[in-house]
C-alpha cells in the first residue's frame, strides 16, 4: 500500500501540487485522472522520487520515502516498475536486452535463469519470440508499450506505475494494454498507479479512481461510482463529451 499525505510541490512561483492525501491499495489499479496541467505527471514523478517534495510524505508499506537512506531508496526502487508514456525503451538495445537490463544490474540469477525470466515476461505480455532480437524502432507503438510493461515487471515489483500507458494507441490496442495491466496487477498482487486521460480506461480497469483538479484531489471512488456521481468536478470532467452525456442519461433512465 502506498500512502500519500499532504503532498505539495512547486516549481518557482508555480504551485503544482496543493496538499494531496491519498491511499493506493494493493492488488488494485489506482487511476489518477484529470485535465492536462492538473498535476498528474508531477504527482506520479513525486511518488517515484524523481521530484523532491516541498511538503508532505509518501510511505510504501510503512516505509517513508523522505526518511530513507540511499541504500534503502535503491532497494525500494527495485520494488518499483514504471511504464513511461513514450515507453522509454533504450534504442541501442534489443527488446530482449531492454527487458534483461534490470536483471543484469540487480539480480543474482544465473544466465539461464535470466533468459527464462526475460522469456516469461515477454511471453506474458504476448510478444512473439521472433521480435526478441529486434530493436524498439522496429516495433509498433502497442508492442513497444508491451515490452515496456515486460521490463517493468521483470524484477517482480510490488509497485507498478504507468504514465498514460495507452496514449497514442488505437482504441483496440489501448484496451489490450489496459486489460494487460489489470491482469498483471491482480495476478502478481501489485499496487498499480496509472495516470490517464482515457475514460475507457477508467470504466474498464478503474478499481480506484482519483480525480485531480488544479493540483488538488477533487474526488475519489470506484469506476461504478464515477458513473453515478453527482459531484460537479466528476460530472464536468467525465461527462464533457456528448457520448458520455448520453451514456449517463441512459444509465439514469435504467
Amino acid at each position: 500500500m502506498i500512502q500519500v499525505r499532504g503532498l505539495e510541490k512547486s516549481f518557482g512561483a508555480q504551485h503544482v501540487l496543493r496538499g494531496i492525501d491519498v491511499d493506493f491499495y494493493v492488488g488494485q489499479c489506482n487511476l489518477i485522472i484529470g485535465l492536462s496541467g492538473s498535476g498528474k505527471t508531477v504527482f506520479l514523478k513525486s511518488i517515484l522520487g524523481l521530484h523532491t517534495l516541498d511538503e508532505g510524505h509518501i510511505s510504501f508499506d510503512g516505509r517513508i520515502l523522505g526518511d530513507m537512506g540511499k541504500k534503502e531508496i535503491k532497494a525500494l526502487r527495485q520494488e518499483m516498475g514504471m511504464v513511461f508514456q513514450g515507453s522509454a525503451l533504450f534504442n541501442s538495445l534489443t527488446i530482449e536486452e531492454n527487458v534483461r537490463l534490470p536483471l543484469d544490474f540487480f539480480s543474482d540469477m544465473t544466465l539461464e535463469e535470466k533468459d527464462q525470466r526475460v522469456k516469461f515476461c515477454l511471453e506474458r505480455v504476448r510478444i512473439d519470440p521472433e521480435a526478441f532480437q529486434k530493436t524498439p524502432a522496429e516495433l509498433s507503438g502497442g508492442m513497444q508499450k508491451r515490452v515496456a510493461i515486460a521490463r517493468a515487471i521483470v524484477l517482480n515489483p510490488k509497485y507498478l506505475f504507468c504514465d498514460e500507458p495507452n496514449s497514442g494507441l488505437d482504441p483496440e490496442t489501448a484496451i489490450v494494454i489496459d486489460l494487460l495491466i489489470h491482469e498483471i496487477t491482480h495476478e502478481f498482487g501489485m499496487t498499480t498507479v496509472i495516470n490517464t486521460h482515457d475514460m475507457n480506461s477508467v470504466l474498464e480497469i478503474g478499481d480506484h479512481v482519483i480525480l485531480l483538479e488544479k493540483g488538488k484531489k477533487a474526488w475519489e471512488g470506484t469506476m461504478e461510482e464515477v458513473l453515478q456521481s453527482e459531484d460537479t468536478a466528476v460530472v464536468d470532467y467525465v461527462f464533457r463529451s456528448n457520448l458520455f452525456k448520453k451514456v449517463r442519461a441512459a444509465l439514469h433512465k435504467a
Partner: protein
Amino acid sequence: MIYRFMDGLGRYFLFLGEVFHKPEHWKEYSKSFFREIELLGLSSVALVSFISVFMGAVLTIQTAINLENPFLPDSYIAIAVREGIVLEFAPTIVSLILAGKVGSNIASTLGNMRVTEQMDALRVMGINPASYLVLPKLLACLLFNPILIIFSMALGLVGGYYAGDFLNLVNTEVFLSGYFMDFNPFYIVYSLTKTFVFAFIIATVSAFFGYNVEGGAVEVGKASTKSVVAMSFSIILFNYILTNLLLQ
C-alpha cells in the same frame, strides 16, 4: 553573463561528481564501454584518415612553396611539416573535428534519451544515468582518441611525403631524412597530454549539454550546437594553457 557562466560551471562540476560516482556493476559498464569504442572511436577512423592525409599534403605544399630557397635543404621542409603535424595539427585540429563528430553525437544521443524519458527510466530502476551513460563514453574517448591522434600523425607524415613526391616539390630522400632529424620525443608526450585533455573536454562537455536538455527535439538540436561551440572554445583555450605550461 558572468553569473550564467559561473552557474553553468558549477553545474558542470556537480555533473562530473555524478559521472564519477563509483560504478556498482563493472560488467554492465564494460559492455557499454566496448559499444562506445565502436560507436565513438572506430567509426571515426575513416574521417580522421582522410583529413590527416590531406592535412599533411597541404602542409608540405605550403611549406615547400614558402621555403623555396636554394640555401635551405628539403629536410628543413620535412622538419617544419613534422613539427606542425605532431605539435598542432594532429592533436588540436583532429580534436576539433572529433568535437564536431563525436561530441555532437554524444550531446544529441543523451539529449534524446532525456526528452524520451529514458534517463528517468534508468533512475526509476535505481541506476545512476550520469555514471552509466557518460562514464563508458568518457573512458572510450580517453582510450581511443590518443590512438586516433597517433594514427593521424602517421598518416599526416605519409600524406606530406607523397604530396612532395607526387608534385615534385622536394627531393624525397632528403625530405624523408628530415622527418627523423633532431626529433624531440617530448613533443609526443606534449601532444598526447593535449589529446587526453581534449578527449576529456569532448566527452564531458558534450555529455553535460545533452544530459541537461529540457524540452523536445528542437532543444536537443540546440544543445548539440551549443556543445560544439563550448567544446571548440574550451579546446582552443586549453591548447593555449597547455602549450604555455608544457613547452616553455
